[in-house]
């Protein structure tokens, strides 16, 4: 098998995105991951390919629901497909993809490794009281080895392969999601790791050296907090725009089996959705994004499949219920305040007194 992997992220719609959900799901239950289908614009494809070629982390920003998080799995998915076709990986193999979801309490070290000191203590005491020789020599050797107790995090796995005990052959895709959630020390503590892709484990006295080719690192931020310049300097940056003119294509690709994504029905739903976005376009409100649009389609489709005659009038009747129907509106607007605001705007528009 040719071992030279391909790192081309040239989005080819028909060739690469014709797989069912089952075909996109990693069969390893430990991963339990479905690799997303994604429809990037030309600029985003360019940004991803630059990040891969220049070996720089790519920082993505954009409004919630615009697909920042999905992009990383889409890259892993395409690399899987491309390299399966080129036979650089086995047919059943999946491209290495690791996710690290940052929390407000996350520390930079968590993504590299964790050390189970308590487990080591427990085992050491167990070994000390090895009554009757319960523990065999192999177990005792494991307990004595501090490496038994270190577990690699997402970035650590991408830099060190535990099985081969050296740097991985393939450039794994690493998603560091919502990097702005932690405080600024978090990003400052990651500077070396993102710059040089190496770190040191003091507990085991192990230096993890940079691999010949670094992993493909995708970071996402909702800009809850500004990120330090020192961190930004080390990243390429791309702001994902809302795909207003691509909604039909995205809907038809992502939800191919739904009746409402057919040409005859999709446009009124898009119009209604864009109306909600426009109504919510004000400070303090959150306009729904692409992921909410897809959920709306699924919700409308569920209702539409129950009407007697599935025609455009029936669809309009369902869409007219949007302001009053909590299950439908809830797919788009997540807070009571936003829902009230939308209802009041719809009411104002339909009320002749107010309109005058």
């Amino acid at each position: 098998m040719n071992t030279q992997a391909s790192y081309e992220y040239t989005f080819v719609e028909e060739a690469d995105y014709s797989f069912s959900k089952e075909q996109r799901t990693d069969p390893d239950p430990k991963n339990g991951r479905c690799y997303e289908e994604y429809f990037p614009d030309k600029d985003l494809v360019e940004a991803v390919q630059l990040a891969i070629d220049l070996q720089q982390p790519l920082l993505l920003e954009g409004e919630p629901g615009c697909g920042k998080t999905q992009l990383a799995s889409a890259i892993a998915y395409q690399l899987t497909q491309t390299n399966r076709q080129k036979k650089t990986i086995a047919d059943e193999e999946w491209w290495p993809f690791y996710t690290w979801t940052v929390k407000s309490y996350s520390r930079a070290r968590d993504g590299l490794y964790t050390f189970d000191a308590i487990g080591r203590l427990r085992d050491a005491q167990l070994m000390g009281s090895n009554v009757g020789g319960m523990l065999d020599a192999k177990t005792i050797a494991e307990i004595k080895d501090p490496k038994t107790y270190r577990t690699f995090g997402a970035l650590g796995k991408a830099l060190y392969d535990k099985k081969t005990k050296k740097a991985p052959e393939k450039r794994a895709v690493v998603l560091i999601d919502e990097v702005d959630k932690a405080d600024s020390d978090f990003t400052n503590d990651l500077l070396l790791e993102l710059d040089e892709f190496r770190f040191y484990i003091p507990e085991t006295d192990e230096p993890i050296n940079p691999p010949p080719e670094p992993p493909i690192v995708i970071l996402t931020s909702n800009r809850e907090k500004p990120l330090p310049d020192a961190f930004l300097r080390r990243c390429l940056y791309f702001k994902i725009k809302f795909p207003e003119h691509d909604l039909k294509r995205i809907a038809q690709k992502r939800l191919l089996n739904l009746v409402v994504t057919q040409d005859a029905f999709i446009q009124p739903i898009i119009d209604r959705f864009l109306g909600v976005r426009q109504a919510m376009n004000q400070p303090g409100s959150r306009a729904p994004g692409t992921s909410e649009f897809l959920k709306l389609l699924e919700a409308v489709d569920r209702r539409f499949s129950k009407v007697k005659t599935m025609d455009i009038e029936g669809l309009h009747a369902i869409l007219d219920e949007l302001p009053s129907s909590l299950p439908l509106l809830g797919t788009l607007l997540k807070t009571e305040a936003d829902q009230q605001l939308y209802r009041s705007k719809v009411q104002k528009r339909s009320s002749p007194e107010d309109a005058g």
Partner: protein
Amino acid sequence: MNVDSWGLEQKLTEPEPFLDLFTEMREAGMQLTLKHYDLLQKGLWRGVASWQDLQRLCAILWVKPSDNYDRQTFEQVFRQYQQTCQEIVVELSEDQPMPVELVPIATREMPQVPVRLMPERYQPSKFLGPIGIQTPTAQGKLSGESWQFTPIALPISIAQFQSTWRRLKSLQPSNYSDEIDIERTKEAIARQGIFADVVLKSSGQQQSELVIFVDEKAGMLPYFPALQPLFRAITGGWVSPARLYRFTGYPCKFLYSWATPHSAIGLDGIMARLHRSRSIVLIISDGGAASGADNPDRVLGTAKFLDLLQSCVSQILWINPMPEPRWRGTPAEEIRDLLEGRMVTLDALVGVKQHQLAQGWMSSLPVGEE
């Protein structure tokens, strides 16, 4: 020749392609480093077919969500650079007809937004304050050294503010001296290989947060240029966790977000997020000293606010930029008494000796006095 690549091909054949673009970006305020230029050169290996391609490439490499890598600045410099390159090509090839689409006159006649400059990039002699307070720059000799005084020459810089904040938050007492430090206990176990004893949290383990309330009343406006580094230290993520709020006169029921000045935030909501042992509040206001008039409402309102605040936070500092003699007979004097001396002037900061400044200006303030 392709219209989209007019002037581009000549640039691509230069030994250091687009070095002048990189330099112009830096001069306009983009804090690009040689690494950024190196990335551009590597990016060019992938090929650019048009100015649009080049702009996209440069934007991905150089624009970031920060004032130092501002998109607006980037786009303006790039546009001007493209125009210049195309005009040079037109001059060099007068015998060739110039494509109609590229006549740049219309664009040139459009009003151009000046490139945004950061406060520290202003030359002191060029700085223009608001007309009402503009005065000749004071110059003279002090201890054999020439000196100038302008609002932005005040002894506050982002780096000083950041280092001082680190020191200040490290002084923050924990109040929980008998709390087990799990992380350090685990580290000790890992180091020793056996659980010998627990490690207790020493004082200074709690993470402090800085909350700044800035008065926006007219009397404060002349001081805003001087305070810009401080604001940028917060908004730029140099000091974190930290929050900035605006108020006018004295904080009442609502304060206003720094990023979006029109969005009001209830005082109750802000108070609920403060922490008795971790939050340090810095109030920047003249306390009514600028107007010089007595204002009982302001004193009463401020007293209520401080009363509420004191029960929610660890420390309160008040910076009053007006000279201390101007506080007399104004609400500022009464507020200073309420604060038991924790109101200081910017004059006090200017008077701090150089070696004290080197250790951080805020450390000279009466921080821990209770």
